[in-house]
């Protein structure tokens, strides 16, 4: 049997990347805990006990089961609802993370994921709600007869099978994202414009464009009249992703079958990047664009295609999120960009741009979000501390190289001591 060589294992690049990520996570958590501690101790209405509860929830919020009814102390254990919600929230995060990671492999920083995500959202919702399926889970009464919401809006006549509408909406979302990603890609390839600047511009163009589209659309939720500025849920037209039995395992949660698609997509991206010639060309462009060109790789094409694929992945994330059926879009987004798009950056950075790693870092990020939610529900603190932790992690990954260097230096220092 081959002997496990611990030292060789520690020297592998993958191990170092994982260690560096774990280290940034730990530092991020520590900073978050310190902020909670300071704000808890300095605030008159809180105290050391609240601060301690806050720290517990930031780290273990996923396993929170609320408060004990008699003692009022926090209780922990397996909570299927939170597990399901984590899988649900991880779904778009994995997709935007893949988007950023794929572009990064080609040497491009895709800060345009929020815009691509928004364009995907618009296309998906438009297709999913414009082609009537004749079904729909919520019913309302119109002159004595029970009809679906879509029928109540006058969307009758030709109906399409729900699976077809779902597929079209999903592909449409990917397509819209791809187009929106290709724009900065082309500007970069043909005119050598910095993709970061182009992406920032296309982000805000998308934010206004999408608001405009929904402002003049017929898709604003007019049925539930307590709601303002929301678009119909896709379940109103009966085009929601199958839960694939996951809701039986994790009851009362938002879980959707889309998570399976997201994981499959990650595997596909991994195979494309690492096992195909095309993927090799993309990575070659990322390592050294000019050397790749010298080797006969069409670098301009690679850049455009890479950004288009990145956009498609972000668009697919939006499609999965809104096709889940239990989500709705607040359409007045012209002044803000979706956080899930920006959070693709830390997801990719934590995974060191490895598509399989993205699955785990996506799950970790959504776990953090759940922890923040629990922190808000159960203590006087609020969910924004998790965003602080995420920002610290991004900040640390800006000099990930340095951390990795420090890690290997520590190793060699240890070796010296052994001698």
């Amino acid at each position: 049997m081959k002997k496990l060589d611990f030292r060789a294992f520690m020297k592998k690049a993958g191990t170092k990347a994982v260690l560096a990520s774990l280290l940034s996570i730990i530092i991020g958590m520590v900073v978050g805990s310190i902020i909670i501690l300071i704000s808890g101790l300095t605030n008159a209405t809180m105290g050391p006990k609240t601060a301690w509860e806050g720290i517990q929830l930031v780290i273990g919020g996923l396993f929170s089961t609320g408060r004990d009814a008699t003692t009022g102390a926090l209780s922990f254990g397996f909570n299927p609802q939170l597990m399901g919600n984590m899988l649900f929230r991880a779904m778009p995060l994995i997709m935007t993370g893949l988007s950023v990671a794929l572009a990064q492999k080609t040497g491009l920083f895709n800060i345009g994921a929020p815009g691509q995500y928004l364009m995907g959202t618009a296309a998906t919702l438009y297709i999913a709600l414009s082609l009537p399926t004749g079904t729909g889970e919520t019913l309302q009464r119109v002159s004595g007869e029970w009809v679906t919401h879509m029928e109540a809006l006058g969307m009758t006549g030709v109906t399409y099978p729900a699976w077809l509408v779902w597929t079209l909406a999903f592909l449409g979302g990917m397509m819209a994202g791809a187009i929106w990603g290709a724009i900065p890609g082309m500007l970069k390839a043909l005119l050598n414009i910095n993709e970061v600047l182009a992406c920032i511009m296309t982000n805000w163009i998308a934010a206004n464009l999408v608001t405009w589209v929904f402002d003049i659309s017929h898709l604003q939720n007019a049925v539930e009249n307590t709601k303002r500025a929301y678009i119909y849920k896709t379940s109103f037209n009966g085009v929601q992703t199958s839960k694939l039995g996951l809701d039986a395992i994790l009851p009362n949660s938002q879980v959707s079958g889309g998570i399976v698609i997201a994981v499959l997509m990650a595997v596909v991206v991994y195979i494309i990047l690492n096992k195909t010639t095309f993927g090799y060309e993309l990575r070659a462009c990322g390592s050294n664009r000019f050397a790749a060109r010298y080797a006969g790789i069409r670098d301009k094409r690679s850049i455009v295609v890479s950004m288009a694929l990145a956009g498609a992945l972000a668009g697919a994330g939006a499609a999965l999120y809104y096709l889940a059926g239990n989500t709705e879009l607040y359409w007045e987004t012209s002044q803000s960009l979706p956080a899930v798009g920006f959070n693709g950056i830390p997801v990719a950075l934590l995974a060191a741009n490895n598509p399989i790693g993205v699955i785990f870092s996506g799950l970790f990020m959504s776990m953090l979000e759940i922890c923040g939610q629990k922190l808000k529900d159960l203590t006087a603190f609020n969910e924004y501390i998790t965003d602080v932790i995420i920002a610290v992690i991004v900040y640390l990954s800006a000099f990930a190289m340095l951390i990795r260097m420090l890690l290997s230096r520590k190793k060699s220092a240890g070796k010296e001591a052994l001698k």
Partner: protein
Amino acid sequence: MDILAILQSDSMAFLIRQTLLFAVPLMIVALAGVFSERSGVINLALEGIMIFGAFVGVLFVNTIEQVGWFTEAYDWLKAASAVKIDARDAAFTSDMVSNLFATQGFALLTMLVTAIVCAIFSMLLAFAAIHLRADQTIAGTALNMLAPALVLFLVRIIANQNTLNIGGDASSWFMLKESYFGFGIKLTRTTKTASMGFLGQAFVNQVYPITYVCILLFIVMSIFMYKTRFGLRMRACGENPQAADSLGINVYKMRYAGVGISGALAGIGGFLYATTTMNCSSNGDVAGFGFLALAVMIFGNWKPGNIALASLLFGLLKCISASYGTLDFDANGIFELKELGISKYVYKLLPYVITLVVLAFTSKRSRAPKAEGIPYDKSVR
């Protein structure tokens, strides 16, 4: 239509006032970007620093209010608008002057505090970019994520809601009103004293003097960058740091200074934005103004003069998109811009589209600092 009448209409005065309101924060934040980039550090964190600056400024005003300093002046000014014209004598005038000085001095003090705190905040970027040789884009993005998160976390704890407000209203604290100067005061139920006239309406009434302070600051800092030895040295570090180093300039120090000044200016811009357009409140959001300022900087080709013009153009577009439905230049009850039938989203989109187009056309001749984004390493030639 009489062109002269239109040019002197109340709507025109309103348009000028509102355009300045949007343009000046853009201008000062874009200049902040120039300071950082010309020293060689890409500053994507403008949005984040603005958000942080807005928070620091509002928190400072809020705290001083609770301590009770300046509140006498505030109360006096708030009541002054209602004082009848015949009750205004020399003593009233001298009180007015001293109280205006007090509140405006308070505004300047807040600007100063904001600038210092934000310069320190921007050291997070400087440290990562200069000493740790980090990826400046990622470090900037990190600050953009950190600022709103930290601000919202603190605001929620301090104010128990998502917005931190000040006790009074920003207009009574920091705004000039025509009634202070004896114009537009109610005489009877229906009659008023004369209005301030076109120039007064456009540049004095309902204007925040800190806007003009920022214009002045913009001019002074531009001259500082171009006409002083320090400015020249700083710009050299963004163009050719090796050459600068060989002449005995400390590149690291210069870049720290560039980012620090950048942070101070962006913070001031954030406070200005919060005061003039958000009634001096902070909610961890400046509606993408920092990114728009980045667009202004690129559009202005990293030069202060062009940036001033670009920010006026973008400010005008922003102003039109916000108020195009209520502008009536010849006072005939028809809202001219609304009649054009162009969606407000077009005006909102235009700045970004224009920037992309300009980037596309000038990419070959772009005057972006040559060494921006590249960490300086003494050992590399």
